[in-house]
């Protein structure tokens, strides 16, 4: 509170970056956690809330006749321009916001004040929603090849590693400790993903301290142990995700990469993903293109290309593909590292996991994956995403690139992911927002010390509770392509600009109709229908009971319609009678067409839905009438209100 110089300014104009012609007048409030703009004019109260922790830059511009503009850019790509009538007020807001958006201590972060008074027990349970132990046991470890090692229990061997690590059974304590001493930050090779079908594993570490010629017997034994823990293969890949030049430069600093001659049975490979500084600059360049109000064809395409962003995304995905192929097709284990093993390594391991294992393409699976490969393995969230006022050179969109890889994959495999792009965008938002405790701090040790589980909420439970918003209506878990390993195409035209994220707040820029909205409405309606079905069934069985009691008395007064329904539904013919008949029109159509084959598409239509219950109706009455009904509806009746609403408005809105 002490940082707020001016809690309220009136007659402020807010200009949305894109539709810059329209400005709304209102009052600007500064609170401890948010900047809030309340519009005056409109009948409905319109509020714009901006979380301080999401603000990435505040810029005061030169005063004009109408006032002093204050430009606020956010980490979630929202951009706002306030015009404040008095320069002095603007100055005060500017200074306040600068301080508020750059907290100096963890304790100042929003997560510590967000719903701080809620029930401790409930909060604690919420944190138990995801368990890494359960995840490793889902993967099939520990087993006869892999052990849970207590070596880092007190974060003594590596303070950036988690307490619980899985290592090859044959790796002894001295080997692990020896190997850790030969690796940057003590980050020795340890298990990230294990493929129980063929025993191939993805391991991760930091670079070896090999310099120009140094060797370490324990480290060599450690790698040998990893090779041995995959009995079906006699070698392993060591993947250095850096460009070769960078790795060689590291040798001069006493670091470097594995020499194939010193390690038995390894195949060494450079992948060539650029470092965090290159990525930061690339994103900056791409954002300049995405922020342009009306770029010409060449400005947009050339800007996008010269930013190199999509090329970097491709590099990360290509690395993931290399590893997934080694594990799934060749059954070979892979050790992945970069320099410290917490940025590119996390990207590549998690992308490979998404490609390999359909579980990570489900809501809960992606949460667990981020929890394992990013949070637990010490990806420096607070540094990379600038949670505290710190070194700007530490900031880089590393996990952003992972999320974008997943998005690019979901564009290519639209039915393979349980979650939709909103899920990815929400995660992206909260990585920066500091609203939840999940991403605070830089490693597990820090997080334990901050007692985040006691003091903050977990994003995962929030997302799980709101999962209906995040489900991809196209998801089809039973599809053959969904089940197996994903084999994406990485030709350049397969990488698209992620408009929904980078132009998230430029509403004028989104398509007028969204298929996903439409399908989600359809899905919701389907669910409602299923509920209705159940309730009708209950009602009917209730009525049946009642009727059973009183039926004798009424038998004489039966009307015609009752006679039709009189035979009680027998369980044996559930869900059969009315399906083929309903589509008899289709059959007729197809036979009359010059082409005889019906093909799989139409045959699918005849299949009853999987969750089908319900009672077959009397075929004579219902199939005929329904057939006609739907036929007429097709031509004349207006769309149902629910599903039409969204696209409807969109179709009207002017360009």
């Amino acid at each position: 509170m002490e940082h707020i110089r001016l809690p309220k300014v009136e007659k402020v104009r807010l200009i949305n970056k894109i539709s810059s012609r329209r400005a709304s007048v209102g009052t600007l409030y500064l609170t401890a956690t948010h900047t809030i703009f309340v519009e005056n004019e409109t009948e409905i109260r319109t509020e714009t809330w901006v979380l301080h922790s999401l603000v990435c830059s505040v810029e005061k511009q030169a005063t004009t006749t109408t006032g002093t503009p204050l430009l606020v850019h956010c980490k979630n790509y929202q951009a706002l321009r306030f015009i404040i009538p008095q320069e002095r007020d603007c100055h005060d807001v500017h200074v306040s916001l600068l301080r508020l958006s750059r907290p100096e201590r963890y304790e100042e972060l929003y997560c510590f004040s967000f719903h701080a008074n809620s029930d401790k027990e409930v909060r604690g349970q919420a944190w138990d929603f995801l368990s890494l132990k359960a995840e490793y046991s889902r993967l099939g470890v520990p087993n006869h090849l892999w052990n849970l090692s207590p070596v880092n229990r007190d974060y003594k061997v590596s303070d950036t590693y988690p307490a619980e690590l899985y290592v090859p059974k044959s790796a002894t304590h001295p080997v692990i400790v020896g190997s850790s001493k030969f690796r940057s930050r003590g980050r020795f090779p340890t298990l990230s993903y294990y493929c129980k079908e063929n025993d191939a594993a993805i391991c991760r570490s930091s670079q070896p301290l090999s310099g120009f010629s140094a060797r370490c017997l324990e480290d060599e034994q450690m790698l040998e142990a990893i090779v041995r823990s995959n009995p079906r293969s006699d070698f392993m890949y060591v993947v250095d995700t850096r460009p070769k030049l960078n790795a060689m430069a590291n040798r001069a600093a006493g670091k470097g990469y594995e020499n194939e001659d010193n390690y038995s049975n390894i195949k060494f490979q450079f992948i060539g993903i650029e470092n965090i500084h290159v990525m930061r600059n690339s994103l900056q360049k791409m954002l300049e293109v995405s922020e342009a109000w009306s770029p010409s064809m060449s400005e947009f395409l050339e800007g996008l290309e010269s930013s190199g962003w999509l090329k970097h995304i491709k590099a990360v995905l290509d690395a993931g593909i290399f590893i997934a192929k080694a594990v799934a097709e060749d059954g070979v284990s892979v050790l992945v590292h970069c320099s410290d093993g917490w940025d590119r390594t996390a990207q590549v391991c998690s992308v490979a996991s998404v490609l390999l294992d359909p579980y990570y393409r489900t809501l809960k699976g992606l949460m667990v994956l981020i929890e394992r490969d990013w949070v637990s393995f010490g990806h420096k969230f607070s540094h990379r995403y600038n949670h505290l006022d710190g070194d700007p050179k530490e900031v880089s969109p590393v996990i952003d690139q992972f999320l974008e890889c997943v998005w690019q994959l979901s564009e290519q495999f639209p039915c393979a992911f349980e979650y939709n792009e909103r899920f990815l965008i929400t995660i992206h938002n909260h990585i920066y927002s500091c609203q939840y405790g999940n991403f605070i701090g830089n490693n597990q040790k820090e997080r334990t010390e901050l007692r985040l589980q006691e003091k903050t909420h977990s994003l995962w439970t929030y997302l799980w509770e709101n999962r209906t918003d995040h489900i991809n209506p196209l998801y089809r878990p039973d599809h053959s392509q969904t089940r197996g390993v994903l084999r994406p195409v990485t030709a350049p035209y397969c990488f698209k600009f992620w408009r929904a994220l980078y132009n998230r707040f430029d509403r004028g820029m989104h398509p007028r109709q969204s298929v996903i909205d439409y399908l989600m409405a359809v899905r919701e309606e389907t669910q409602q229908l299923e509920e209705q079905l159940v309730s009708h069934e209950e009602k009917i069985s209730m009525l049946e009971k009642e009727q059973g009691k009183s039926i004798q008395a009424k038998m004489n007064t039966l009307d015609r319609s009752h006679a039709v329904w009189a035979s009680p539904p027998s369980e044996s013919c559930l869900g059969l009678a009315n399906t083929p008949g309903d589509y008899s029109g289709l059959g007729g159509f197809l036979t009359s067409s010059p082409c005889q084959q019906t093909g799989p598409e139409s045959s699918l239509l005849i299949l009853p839905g999987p969750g089908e219950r319900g009672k077959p109706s009397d075929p004579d009455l219902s199939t005929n009438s329904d057939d006609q009904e739907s036929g007429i509806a097709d031509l004349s009746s207006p769309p149902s209100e629910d599903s039409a609403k969204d696209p409807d408005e969109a179709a009207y809105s002017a360009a």
Partner: protein
Amino acid sequence: RSDRSTHAAKPPFAMSSDNVAISAEFSPELRVLRDSNKEEPQLLPKESVQDMAKDVTYICPYIGALRGTLTVTNYRLFFKCMDRVSFVLDLPLGVVSRVEKIGGASSRGEVSYGLVCKDIRNLRFAHKQMEDSLIKSIFEILMKFAFPVSNGLTIFAFEYGQVYPENGWKVYDAQAEYKRQGLPNESWRITKVNDHYELCDTYPSTLVVPVNIPDEELKRVAAFRAKGRIPVLSWIHPESQATVIRCSQPMVGVNGKRSKDDEKYLQTIMDANAQSHKLFIFDARPSVNAAANKMKGGGYESEDAYQNAELVFLDIHNIHVMRESLRKLKEVVYPNIEESHWFSNLESTHWLEHIKLILAGALRIADKVESGKTSVVVHCSDGWDRTAQLTSLAMLMLDGHYRTIRGFQVLLEKEWLSFGHRFQLRIGHGDKNHTDADRSPVFLQFIDCVWQMIRQFPAAFEFNEYFLITILDHLYSCLFGTFMCNSEQQRVKEELPKKTVSLWAYINSQLEEFTNPLYVNYSNHVLFPVVSMRHLELWVGYYIRWNPRMRPQEPVHQRYKELLAKRAELQKRVEELQREVTNRSAASSSERAGSPTRSITPVQTFV
């Protein structure tokens, strides 16, 4: 349950790709793929094998050299690989733009032939040299049948005698279409002046003109418009009475000639719309080109001569620029795409830039008519290329009827075919003169623009992407009569409706294939697409469809259908149970079971 992934694993190369790939197998010329055991294609009615050669090598840019049998008929080229099981190449000869012999005989005695195709691909074959020079090589036979017009043969469309349930030539009836628009009315009449194509030989016989302009005056207006293409009504707004008028450029010339009749005529057009006291004239050309046309006697309306008219140039380039742009695009996308400079290479073709200008122009026209309630006059030079693009796209935005499958057919028949877009010249059906400067992808650009709109309004169009691709495939195939000739007059003279089959007969016989499952009838809505760069994309499903890497990963289309079918199914069941509940509770004493749940009308049904 059939899983389509098995199909995706080995696609027949000759077929269209994207989500609807499998549908391609239903098209008449591709049905042969079902019987891929045979070396020969399954022939269409009146199709006959002209030559066959074994041991021909097809040099596929993606999988390398394939050895097999090549068959040439009077309609198609059919190549079947002998050593690999599933490879078939089947293309209508109409697609071939040029056949060239590449180099001399190789050491193995083989000669190479390159086929440049109109649908963004090139094919290359190698075949042993004929020892006896008197025997014609199969490629000479191919050339003969690929270019029937140049060789004094008839185009296959005139022989193809397939009977379809519907006569596609009846899809468009000008009178009926104008009647649908509410014409004639108190301001507009249908004139017979062009009944025998005497006023203008490139215009249709049925024209809509202002009521108080007699036919005699129309003739004087025609004298002042290039090729006699006078301003006539294409579309009228059902409420505001604002109209879309099309014509050719005025014959102003270097001396700035004026025509009182033309000026009065446009004034009458403006007056016919009581809502606005202004008239917008959209000249599709860049202003420089329009001015340059004065040297050739053409030009544009000066605002001095035409009071209350505002002239807007839309900066769309001419057919030569467009042809060059597509040539560059083909270089960039076929056969392989250079990894490193994809975006800048794409940019250098300017293809998307042209698409953007056309869409932006149509958007301005639609906006003036809808929001400004103002009538618009659209022309370019002759009024049959850019004008057709603009009016048809604007009408697609303004009128939901044209967004149905049949409505779209009417739109094409009306704005493109009847108003004399010169398909024969622009495509060069059966003509070997591939360098002809009259060829240009004007119609392709229009379809591309429609695709861009479909992407932005996925529920507003009754047809799907496959419908557009099918139209483009048959634009070149020469199987149907639809895109033959240059004008209505020529079509009547050639008796096309009698001698050929219309593409619409084929399409309307299997509408299921071309229907968009997400379609919701927005007939009263006007669509204003976004034309910013971020929203325009290269139509990968068309331009890059030959690349096997382009193969769709998953059949989204089918998933849509499943989701919607499931809902329809549930709706039906709920309604049934609803009825049962009502019946039962009616039967079961006075106690009525609450209020009935609202009945749900299906948004889309597939039966």
